[in-house]
């Protein structure tokens, strides 16, 4: 690497809005510092493109610190890049070599249609959530916060899965484009808390039905989802989701 930083070659998926498909386009960016984030590197590319009068590469991001779930790129073939337990926006350039070629693609899955370039439509997740990813407690109806004790063990377990950021990497990584890790995270959070327990059966049935209707595939235990999940949500939750589903189907509550 020279003082001027690294040179990086990019193969980026470009797809016009409304087009059925797109293609990889090659770009080169210079003067890339190791401490830069991957998205800051793309910012620089976009400034170069705009100055040349070319259209910027569209990609989503917002918080740029790994919590909002907006960003999501397949970098060198892996959702959110080669590092475990990070989101795309947390990927730093120090993990790449001077002169390296990096492919950049959107999160691909049937239920996540590409809107433009690297931006995809993940509203299917919202529709699944709308089917029951909640506790039916209107504002105003709550008892005192300490009225119902919750064991620290279960509260922590619930928090482990509640940390899902809804980014969709699990779907992008799954050969079947299954949304099971995402859906199971919500089902498992709420069924582990007394407040969510009352609607558990109904919730599992409705969310799973919507997941199927959106066109997400079945889980066949590949485990790719867990490997790319930036919040390290465990695949165990999928087994729990199946139990909850059975419970709902058999007991009807």
């Amino acid at each position, binding site marked *: 690497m020279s003082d001027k930083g690294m040179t990086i070659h990019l193969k980026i998926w470009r797809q016009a809005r409304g087009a059925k498909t797109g293609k990889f386009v090659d770009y080169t960016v210079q003067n890339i510092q190791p401490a830069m984030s991957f998205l800051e590197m793309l910012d620089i590319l976009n*400034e170069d493109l*705009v100055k040349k009068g070319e259209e*910027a590469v569209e990609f989503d991001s917002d918080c740029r610190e790994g919590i909002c779930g907006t960003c999501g790129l397949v970098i060198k073939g892996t959702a959110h890049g080669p590092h475990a337990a990070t989101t795309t926006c947390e990927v730093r350039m120090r993990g790449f070599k001077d002169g390296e070629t990096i492919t950049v693609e959107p999160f691909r899955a049937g239920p996540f249609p590409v809107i433009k370039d690297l931006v995809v439509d993940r509203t299917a997740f919202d529709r699944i959530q709308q089917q029951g990813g909640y506790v039916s407690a209107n*504002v105003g109806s709550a008892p*005192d916060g300490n009225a*119902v004790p919750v064991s620290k063990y279960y509260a922590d377990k619930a928090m482990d899965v*509640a940390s899902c950021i809804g980014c969709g990497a699990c779907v992008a990584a799954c050969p079947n484009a299954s949304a099971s890790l995402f859906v199971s995270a919500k089902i498992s959070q709420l069924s582990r808390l007394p407040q969510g327990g009352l609607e558990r059966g109904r919730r599992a049935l409705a969310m799973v039905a919507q997941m199927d209707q959106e066109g997400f595939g079945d889980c066949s235990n590949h485990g790719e989802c867990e490997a790319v999940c930036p919040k390290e949500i465990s695949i165990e939750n999928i087994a729990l989701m199946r139990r909850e589903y059975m419970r709902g189907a058999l007991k009807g509550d």
Partner: protein
Amino acid sequence: MSTNRKLDAKIPGGPLALKWERHKMDNPLVAPGGNRRKFTVIVVGTGLAGGGAAATMGELGYNVLNFCIQDTPRRAHSVAAQGGINAAKDYQNDGDSIERLFYDTIKGGDYRSREANVYRLAELSTGIIDQCVAMGVPFAREYGGTLANRSFGGVQVSRTFYARGQTGQQLLLGVYSALSRQVQAGTVKMFPRYEMLDLVLVDGRARGIIARDLTTGEIKRYAADAVVLATGGYSPVYYLSTNAVNCNATAIWRAHRRGALFSNPCYTQIHPTAVPHMGDYQSKLSLMSESLRNDGRVWVPKKPGETRRPSDIPEAERDYYLERRYPAFGNLVPRDIAARAAKVECDAGKHAYMSPYSVYLDFGDAIQRLGRDVVADRYGNLFSMYEEIIGDNPYQVPMMIYPAPHYTMGGLWVDYNLQATIEGLFVAGEANFSDHGANRLGASALMQGLADGYFVVPRVVASYLAGAKLQAVKTDHPAFAAVENDVRGLIGRLLAIKGHRTVREIHWDLGRIMWDKVGMARDAAGLKEAIARIGELRGQFWHELALSGTDADLNKQLEQAARLADYLELGELMARDALMREESCGGHFRNEHQTPDGEAKRDDANFCFVSAWEYTGENREPVMHREHLAFENVELKTRSYK
């Protein structure tokens, strides 16, 4: 220029503790069922304030249209809050009360907020926790199953509820789940990837918005009986801040241009503990939660220009300047004080080795005292985030931190009912000015967001709707066509510039001016210079901006350019407000107004008021109005944390 237009805050009569209860009793209601369905309410924003308001109004039966910029409401910037949310539950039996939370918040805000609003906030805080628990928010718990608390800067009780370092995320997911339920029930219609670009007034009342569909670029009209703006804060006016890259002032600024007064724009919060600025490529400064100051000790080398690594600097050559200057609160002084103290040290050449703008936050003692595991349990996620960014391991090497723009206390002026100076326009959450005075205490923005969203907005909007006797208005009303035309004109103007400088380059320049001259310490000469330079930069923007692509497409550069156009006006107003305020208070520090030992010197005789600026046209001087602040329940004191 300043005049005295009467600003009526509509504070209800009676004793402080009974105002809100009485107000609820005295104001009209809309009966349940079909009556409520007849009213349409636009809510812009899906954070704690907007999402909370939309869901709750949906539960009550109103017809709600809810807009956000992100692809789903669950990503509003509230999601990024780390540390916690305050509530006067007194579960720790350590002497907390509504009264004390009220008092701490008023004092924390350096006596520049409205008593009645702050009291209501403290009063509603307890119900927020109950509601969140009922919705399945997995707050931290003790082994016995009860809710856990931690303490936050500027107070002496433990009243902060939290969910690891992800409290904002969990509260927002609670809001999102309530919203999802209402979308399913058909009461709330969601508009993700939409940006409000202007406000439509009919007969002087807010009756709708013009929004751009960010996917297709289409400009669309929406009509309603009331409009609620809950569009968050605007710290990216400094370019680098702890906020998300899409945070903006556009909705409130366009409303300001339509007549809503803008209050206290000079009150900004520079958070003391963020990752330092390392290079010009940076797009944000990640926050390291304030909770770190519970166990971390802040220090700088005693010797100016020190080049040794921190581990090579012996104890006797370190200055724990917060513990030295503020023995009573030590590392837990409020944010404005901690931030300015870091600046004072760095300006004197005392700083961490890697950057002249950084101080140490050291966990060495905490690890010895508590053990590595306990420290990891409390702060593990923050430590790994830090290591990702900086490349150092905070278990071994002290963290480097520096203040960063974080929160904007200023915002649209609202009365006690959260109504702006435009009737039918309500403003909630960080977008209004109302509850934090000149400095916000930690863990109180989430509290305000949910208090406004779950409890205040649904009540006050209902009484407006019940009392207003509104005519039916549809989007074919000429007022909509006129405003839509303005929006199209603006977008066309931006795309027609065809200059050579990118949005980021110009935004960066604005950020530099703001940080250097309207940042942690300000003076008259610098502020005047800022006003002049921002004016010039605005001229450059309108001649030199480079954009590509079209308006009829997803085009994020265009979105950012339109937001920057507003920042270029707002930045100037912030400087003007700071120049007008000839005192130091909270986050606003004027070098000319300090005590001999460098503390802020307030001027209650002349500045105990809220400024409220009126827009008078592009490149014209704004006019200032005042709301005098009356303190009937607390005594104005010099804030001391010594």
